[in-house]
């Protein structure tokens, strides 16, 4: 049940991300990439198995196996990935704003795709 919910959530995030990424405006592309990186980050997190209420820190009461604890490594990996994707998105936003200022258009190609495409 949890696994199905998680998969549906990830699939929706991914699909929305890819759809937005293929749009012609830089803002939609940035949003799409953000959604896609959220999906990737959640995927890393769930690759350490879906556990509810399990600690990643070993204590004295239970045997130190993954049956009793959550895998701490994906949590460390996902922190790195979040920091990187956050910084990259910020950079991309700055580039998109500069490109808008220099080319006068927020189309990803810097020029509008012709009058008939604008409607």
């Amino acid at each position, binding site marked *: 049940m949890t696994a199905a919910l998680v998969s549906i959530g990830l699939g929706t995030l991914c699909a929305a991300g890819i759809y937005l990424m293929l749009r012609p405006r830089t803002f939609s592309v940035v949003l799409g990439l953000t959604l896609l*990186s959220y999906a990737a980050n959640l*995927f890393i997190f769930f*690759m350490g*198995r879906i556990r509810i209420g399990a600690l990643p820190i070993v204590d004295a009461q239970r045997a130190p196996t993954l049956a009793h604890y959550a895998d701490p490594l994906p949590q460390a990996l996902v922190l*790195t990935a979040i920091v990187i*994707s956050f910084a990259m998105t910020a950079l991309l936003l700055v*580039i998109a704003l500069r490109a808008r200022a*220099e080319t006068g258009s927020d189309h990803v190609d810097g020029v509008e795709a012709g009058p008939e495409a604008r409607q």
Partner: protein
Amino acid sequence: MTWPHLITLPVVLPLMAGALLVLVEGRHAALAKALGMASTLAVLATAMMLTWQADTGAVQAYLLGNWAAPYGISLALDRLSALMLLLTGVVGVAALLYASGGDAQRGAHFQSLFQFQLMGLNGAFLTADLFNLFVFFEVLLIASYGLLLHGAGAARLRAATHYVSFNLAGSALFLVAVSLLYGLAGTLNMADLAQRVPALGPDRLLLVQSAALMLIVVFGIKAALLPLYFWLPATYGAASAPVAALFAIMTKVGVYATLRMCTLVFGADGGATAHVTSPWLESLALATLLLGSVGALAARQLRAMLGNVVVASAGTLLLAVALGRPGTVAAGLFYLVNSTLVAAALFLLADRVRHARGSADDQLSPAAMGAARTTLGVLFVLFAVSAAGMPPLAGFMGKVLLLQAAGQGPWAGGIVATILAASLLTLVAFARSGSTLFWKPGAASDGPVIAPPALADAPMPTHWAHGASLAWLAVLIVSCAVLAAPLSRYAAAAAQQLFDPAAYRQAVFGAQPAPPAFDVRREMRERKAAKP
């Protein structure tokens, strides 16, 4: 006894220098220039020493954080890594020398971004951990975004928007592939993956194969494989000359990572993933080679043509990797050295040609060129001969080695014919652009050059550093041909080493953590015991 920490220097040195340069660069331009150059030269010297060490045939492993493999992150140095480090150092020196002729002063933080780029490249070549490889990829990408935008201008911003978005999507895919592999095998250490992936049960077959192929897609983005290379000509064409020259080594990171994973993890002992990539990679590499050459022929600007030549050479390299035999990989490595140097040299030369032609820029149409025509023409012939694979330079020897090695497997006829056809197309492209630029009537008159309009990315006036940088690369390209025997011996030995993944695994797992200088836990225990 050699110093064991030497292997960390190619990463640590540029990191320190880059961090220092952030502080220095805005205030003391001359000091920053000297510091950047000193660091790059030191990295080159380290790479030379490491190559000398790696050539003994032993794989060196280093435990970062002093945790035994597979729990910590390891660095590993074999002949291939050492060769890539050396190549990075050599191209880095050339690009930085060229940039010191004026390009470095066009925007803020060129020197520190350059150092961070070197750090990312070197780290990617050294690491033996898949997630660490992702991190170093990101380091080199972040630096490359900054370097690409250096100097700005609308064309550059447009190229950067595409380049950054594309690579961000690639990074997301990389993360998915890496975490899928972690979920299946429970490790990210490459040597450990090489042991665990073949041992996976048949129910994991499809998942692990898709993870492997996803990784190859990500590396294909970096290496400019067919459906994923369209960003490259625009990006390289829009970048300033020294940055484009440095980017010549960036496509090779993708080739390196593909080669590493295809031999170490997805190689002959890869179990379910053994040769999972070859059927796709081979045909795509051939198509990349062919389309790159056609693109070179169709290009109307010199820099766009060079971008397509880089794509074609990436296709050749990936083909050598995909054929997956020691002979083809050895030929590919030999070809890699020469093609990287030539690509860097041609991008630098294109900048000088643009300067000499003034407002005609790098359009492939006749225009006056001024007095620099002879020198530039001679250099162009030298580089073009090597890039197109004509005798007597090393590009020719690389192609011959590859044809010999490729001529033995299945589909040999088709592969050999495609390589030859692509070479012919590249040759025609170079001959056409060379004769248009240097021989056509407009060019022949050493008449006055029309001054270019004030563009944001107009080439810098002539400086002795430009000549020195081009001379450095020309000497290296010629010595690739003169020293072809030792170079091909080294390439063959590197390929042999790659096809013996057991040695790599043993080295990574055999590295012992150094005994701690002081053990805090034991001290605390003893102190507790000493208390009454």
